[in-house]
């Protein structure tokens, strides 16, 4: 397990780091971004863990898919994105929505089906969306959001806004047709979209290797779209940040799409119903050693950031999660007035006169 940041291989921007930086913190990432990534990772970790607790208390209904173990990817990308860039993600999307700026209360409230929820309880855990923060939706049917993200990128290209779409999906998603169609068209049209495969080794309960003809489900397919093969350690926020920054920059400058495979692991089962018994013994334990959060904490300390700074962030995050939990619990259920609202742009639901 890497305790120190690896040399930013092939990273253009690395060259931009100050030539004779006194501290390692003054490299191409720097202190502010590192603290931000640490905080984001913690926020995700604790929010997700809280969601799990609330489910055990029967306060979270339906299903939910946690990103515990995969925090570095969401955090690294969010830190590299411009505030008006677009995120498209999956049902495993609490993390991606929150790191763009959605409030914890609104996220937990949605999982609990409360009025304060991001979607007033109408969408649920699998559809978190916060358009004001550029979180353009969590999509629950495998593959659909890849072409949708390409469409948002088409908008940016057409209007010349410079916005980039970043689209997250899992390893299992690389075997569905929409994956193929979206990436081909994005490549042909040179759209500003970054496709990010979070390879956590499993589709639902089936190991990805059992159902995929190549070893690296995304990276080994990049050449089918004329794209370079890119693999990154998805548990290392710095590595993710660098790859994200470069791909986003290239897209913003008109260089077209990228396909990035981030290797990672989910600590929980696939969804709340899943005890993950199908995992070979010891696998989780191995990956726990690569848990992105303790690793990143240690890196901050190694870089000379004070224990007090780190632990004050930890305390702040815990408190924020506690506060959000209380606020969400206090929120009422959505009233019936929501039922017939917002099918149509006029705010209503009428299909006849």
């Amino acid at each position, binding site marked *: 397990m890497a305790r120190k940041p690896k040399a930013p291989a092939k990273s253009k921007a690395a060259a931009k780091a100050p030539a004779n930086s006194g501290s390692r913190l003054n490299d191409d990432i720097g202190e502010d971004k590192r603290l931000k990534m640490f905080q984001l990772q913690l926020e995700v970790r604790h929010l997700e863990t809280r969601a799990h607790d609330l489910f055990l208390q029967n306060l979270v209904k339906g299903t939910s898919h946690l990103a515990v173990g995969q925090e570095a990817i969401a955090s690294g990308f969010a830190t590299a994105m411009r505030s008006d860039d677009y995120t498209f993600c999956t049902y495993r999307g609490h993390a991606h929505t929150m790191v763009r700026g959605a409030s914890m209360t609104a996220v937990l409230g949605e999982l609990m089906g409360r009025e304060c929820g991001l979607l007033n309880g109408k969408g649920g855990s699998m559809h978190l*969306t916060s358009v004001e923060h550029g979180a353009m939706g969590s999509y629950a049917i495998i593959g659909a959001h890849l072409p949708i993200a390409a469409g948002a990128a088409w908008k940016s290209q057409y209007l010349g806004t410079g916005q980039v779409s970043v689209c997250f999906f899992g390893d299992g998603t690389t075997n569905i047709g929409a994956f193929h169609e979206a990436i081909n068209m994005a490549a042909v049209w040179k759209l500003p979209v970054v496709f990010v495969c979070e390879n956590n080794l499993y589709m639902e309960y089936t190991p990805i290797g059992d159902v995929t003809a190549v070893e690296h489900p995304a990276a080994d397919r990049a050449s089918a779209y004329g794209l370079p093969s890119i693999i990154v350690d998805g548990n290392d926020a710095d590595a993710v940040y660098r790859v994200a920054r470069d791909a986003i920059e290239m897209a913003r400058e008109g260089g077209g799409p990228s396909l990035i495979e981030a290797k990672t692991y989910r600590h929980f089962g696939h969804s709340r119903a899943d005890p993950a018994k199908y995992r070979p013994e010891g696998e989780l334990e191995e990956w726990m050693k690569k848990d992105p959060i303790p690793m990143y904490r240690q890196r901050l300390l190694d870089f000379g950031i004070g224990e007090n700074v780190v632990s004050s962030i930890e305390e702040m995050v815990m408190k924020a999660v506690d506060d959000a939990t209380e606020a969400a619990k206090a929120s009422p259920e959505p009233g019936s007035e929501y039922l017939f609202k917002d099918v149509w742009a006029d705010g209503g639901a009428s299909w006849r006169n």
Partner: protein
Amino acid sequence: MAELTYRDAVAAAIAQEMRRDETVVFLGEDVAWAGGVFKTTVGLLDEFGEKRVRDTPISEQAIIGAAMGAAMTGLRPIAEIMFSDFFAVCWDLIANQIPKTRYMTSGQVIMPLVIRTANGGGVRFGAQHSQSIENWAMMIPGLKVVAPSTPADVKGLLAASIRDDDPVIFFEQKSLYADKGEVPDGEYVEELGKAKVLREGTDATIIALAAMVPRAMKAAERLQAEDGISASVVDVRCLVPLDTQTIFAEIRKTGRAFTVEENPRLCGWGAEISSLAMEECFWDLDLPLIRITTPHIPLPSADALEDEALPSVERIYNTVREGLD
């Protein structure tokens, strides 16, 4: 007024809207350089250029996904799906994503897009290129559904669909593409959700859509001429929103109603209208509402068989006449 074909009215409407609104863009297979396989979009590339009129790969999910993503973020895309049968290869986007996203996000987005498609039979293309699938769209909450029967309606309703802030499925009936009709000059926009009474009658009400409208009209003329039966004909035009007011008013006038559907029978739009008439016009009905549909079979390709399957003027005429007996 100029005389235009149903086919040409498509390009006319798109051009009209692209001229007034720069956010209108158009994509599909063979739509730009080739002007569309049905020649419905000839001239658009020349006028609006490659940035706004785009040829795509054979990737219907990418086409509809692109339209959705662009619509959610500020454009007003028009996507062509060459044959409506191909909705089946991008049905997730059409049925699960586009219509539900506004509701699921509690109104955070609008979805102003149009999916145009060539629908229906009568041209010997066989079971996979001839389906009339208005009911596929009608059954999905969150989609508006339009199916014009005349060149003027193509122009006016397509323009209205492009301006609408909701997703609209726009069915062009391919057997009508060569039909000609007067189309208002200049900017012309109709209203969605209005049925049209094409013929007023006192004995029976025939409710039809798209290619079945001219057939219903001919049957009504024959009923008048040969049997002295006075039939009104309603062109439904939009299935969603559905103009139940106009439809019910015409049903109530005569108390004897018939629907004419090109789709195979089960769960066709006529079933919905029948069930609505049952619930809301029951006491005004002198006779049961009778549905005239394509039988519930895949459509055969040979001329003789296809003609026998689709509701014909003859069949409409006979059904109404016998129904009133």
